[in-house]
């Protein structure tokens, strides 16, 4: 599903990624590790289609509509409610039975009772849960998750574990983390960036 050959990325004179080779098969669970500044986020942004490589070849065999990308930031509007944010994304992704799907996700991630509250009033952990709802809303074939456990409490992390376990084998997952042990039981391959 993802094939990268000698992929690199520069921002002006600064090289942030160099010579990455990666093959991720359909249904695989690939874990990207590496110290700060090693280019994990850049690699994930390239795979999600948010940036183009400066060098090398990168093929991602799914259309943009089938990618779910979790970034460092939640990519939701702080002045809108959880419901309004998910409704906007649901419309843009043309999610069928949008309301039911949004309701199911909000309930699963424990946000149903605060669905009418503006995101600005959420804690960081609640916002991360909402971000996960956004990522899963359109049932993407390829999940690109950048440090998904950030800010989640133990209950939130367990929810994410359960969700990833449920999707394991059915969806392709590319995840970057500083805690590879957390996803080790699911991982089918690992890429360590220096």
């Amino acid at each position, binding site marked *: 599903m993802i094939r990268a050959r000698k992929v690199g990325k520069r921002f002006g004179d600064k090289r942030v990624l160099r010579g990455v080779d990666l093959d991720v098969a359909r249904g695989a669970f690939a874990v990207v590790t590496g110290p700060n500044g090693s280019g994990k986020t850049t690699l994930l942004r390239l795979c999600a289609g*948010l*940036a183009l490589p400066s060098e090398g070849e990168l093929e991602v065999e799914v259309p943009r509509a089938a990618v779910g990308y979790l970034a460092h*930031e939640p990519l939701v509007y702080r002045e809108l409610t959880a419901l309004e944010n998910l409704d906007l994304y649901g419309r843009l992704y043309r999610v069928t039975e949008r309301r039911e799907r949004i309701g199911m996700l909000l309930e699963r991630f424990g946000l149903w009772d605060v669905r009418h509250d503006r995101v600005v009033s959420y804690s960081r952990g609640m916002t991360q849960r909402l971000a996960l709802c956004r990522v899963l809303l359109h049932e993407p074939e390829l999940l690109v998750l950048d440090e998904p456990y950030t800010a989640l409490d133990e209950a939130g992390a367990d929810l994410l574990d359960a969700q990833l376990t449920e999707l394991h084998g059915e969806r392709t997952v590319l995840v970057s983390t500083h805690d590879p042990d957390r996803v080790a039981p699911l991982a089918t391959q690992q890429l360590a960036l220096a």
Partner: protein
Amino acid sequence: MTYFADVGALARKDLLLELRARDTLPAMLLFVVATFVVFHFSLPAHSSQLASSGLLWVAIIFTALLGLGRAFVPEREQRVLDGLVLAPCDRSAIWLAKSIATLAFLGAAELVALPVFALFFHGLSGATVAGVVLADVGICAVGTFLGAMAVATRARDLLLPLLFLPLAIPIVVGGVGASVVGSPGRYLAFLALYDVLFGLLCWATFEYVVTE
């Protein structure tokens, strides 16, 4: 039709955000009215209508700049632009929706500003009002495009006026021309041509502005 549904959803979101935050429109209103008050006292008594017509266009351009500077603030705060860019909708829908929302804010500010101008200076002709409407379209189309370019840079507050003001010169030329000449047809046509040309250019190239 899905394209216009996307534009509608995105524009509605911008209007809702403004309704909640009330960041942009009050600032634009206050600025444009304050500008007219300042101009009223700074122009010599019995100064010509030509001078005050020119000031109207200066006020409109800078009021629009204020709104354009705020246009992508919600997207910048949480990098939401990444989320919109990833969505499967045509990326130009993001530009069109934001242009429509900015046009709505500018139009609302002018609904107050133009009567205030008439009160302080002189009445406005139909050609001037038509010129303002046509100019607003061009201002919002080009300004939103440049706003999206500027938002990705660190010097965004500086970059937007530097890029926008040179491109707004034809709008000022067309607008002032439509306001002061006896037969304003060719100036209005000039403004309409500007809208079409720059609108198409922005629509066709917006995708490259939001891709790294």
